[in-house]
């Protein structure tokens, strides 16, 4: 993958690994175990990060069953900017096992920015049932919130300017080797913002 000189690495593959392991421990600690825990990733990258968090949770506590406690929650149909960004084909929403009623739901996403994605996710959750608690885990919190939303578990707090673009490169989506996965910041070269950009 070619990168312009204005691209800078802020997290390497091993940084991401360590951050996910720490978040997994934080989740178990704040929930006091894994009973009734449900991880929902927000497609597309959040789904993959949720799966990786789940593998770690299963290692920490064998009572955690990834097949019953990991899912995905698509928010396309709940966005407030559909008219500006145009229609997208929704990604699958998969709610495992007994559903979300009474569960401790941990929403997982790659980058927390304006908070609008999370707002949409909360609406989507409400339509599916009534969780006991909803928490938010993100790999990167880049600031510039537009809504009163905060993350509970953060991989890295990253001060950014609005002209910058933060990308999380993952094996499954971006085709980079697992050891080359990274979080990078790019300065926008006069390009207008695009759909899906963070």
């Amino acid at each position, binding site marked *: 993958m070619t990168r312009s000189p204005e691209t800078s690495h802020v997290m390497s593959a091993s940084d991401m690994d360590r951050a996910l392991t720490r978040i997994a421990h934080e989740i178990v600690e704040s929930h006091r175990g894994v009973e009734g825990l449900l991880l929902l990733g927000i497609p597309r990258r959040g789904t993959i990060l949720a799966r990786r968090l789940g593998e770690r949770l299963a290692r920490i506590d064998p009572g955690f069953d990834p097949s019953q406690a990991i899912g995905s929650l698509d928010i396309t149909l709940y966005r407030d900017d559909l008219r500006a960004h145009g*229609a997208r084909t929704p990604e699958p929403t998969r709610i495992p096992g007994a559903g979300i009623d009474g569960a401790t739901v941990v929403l997982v996403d790659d980058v927390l920015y304006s908070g609008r994605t999370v707002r949409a996710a909360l609406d989507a959750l409400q339509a*599916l049932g009534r969780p006991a608690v909803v928490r938010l885990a993100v790999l990167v919190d880049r600031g510039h919130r537009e809504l009163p939303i905060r993350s509970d578990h953060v991989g890295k707090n990253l001060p950014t300017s609005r002209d910058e673009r933060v990308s999380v490169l993952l094996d499954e989506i971006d085709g980079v080797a697992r050891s080359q996965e990274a979080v990078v910041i790019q300065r926008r070269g006069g390009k207008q913002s695009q759909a899906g950009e963070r």
Partner: protein
Amino acid sequence: MRHLLSTADLSHTQALSILDTAEEMAAVSTREVKKLPTLRGRTVVNLFFEDSTRTRISFEAAAKRLSADVMNFSAKGSSVSKGESLKDTVQTLEAIGADAIVMRHWASGAAAQLAGSGWTDCAVINAGDGTHEHPTQALLDALTLRRGWSAAHGADPRGTDLTGMRVLIVGDILHSRVARSNIWLLRTLGADVGLVAPATLLPVGVEKWPVSVYYSLDEALGSGPEAGPDAIMMLRVQAERMGGAYFPTAAEYTRRWGLTDERLARLAAHRGAAGQRPMILHPGPMNRGVEISAAAADSPMNQVLDQVSHGVSVRMAVLHLLLSSSERNTA
């Protein structure tokens, strides 16, 4: 995509995008809250110049599940019967604040004319125009076929098409907009399409279409378990065509082109490449005892009720993709 007028205009990518979106919409109807906020504040007008129950209700249900406001307009009892033109009717509806017009019209090409006229900025969805096209019916048929086809192959339907599936369309091809829309869409999705009809009910030039043509249903069903179709779509014998001398009597039609109990038994013996039974589709309403026997109508192979619920999902997908699109703002 700005309008949905014909399945002939749909690319493979666009067709899959609609079907994949419809899969997610289908999941909504199994939930506790069967409503999405996606089209809140948008207005959809059902403009029907021809009688219809299921298509209009299906579009209405789809728009309401997406939180849009719905206005129903039927030509009967409206100013159209006082001689108001289509242009004036549509401009009136737009002045009221319509964002999308779902139109059924007795004239072939009416939806395309409205979309290309410049009379309105609304998204236009063709809900059947004369004997031309009925694209959402073909999309719901494709969704039904894809569900069965992918289930037989143990795959997730998302992102797949109908490559290798053999589909027979039986009945009045000449007057059927459902058949035309299905032929173009199924070919785009990679299925092999066979038409079965009396020679009087096939259009001129059918030999240039990308299909095989049979004049007898027995011949099309073939012999032996490998020869049969993966799905058979029975078209309705339209009572209004009975006087046209296209075939001698209803009984004669049933004997040669109907899905009788005897043909149902032959069909049930067929097994597809993955060991699956053939699917029976019908756009409804069924004429039991004419094109389809009561046993075939009630057979577990019959997908009619699934088709109805898939219709709502597909129409939700189309409304979402057309009305959430940003192209409207620049057009």
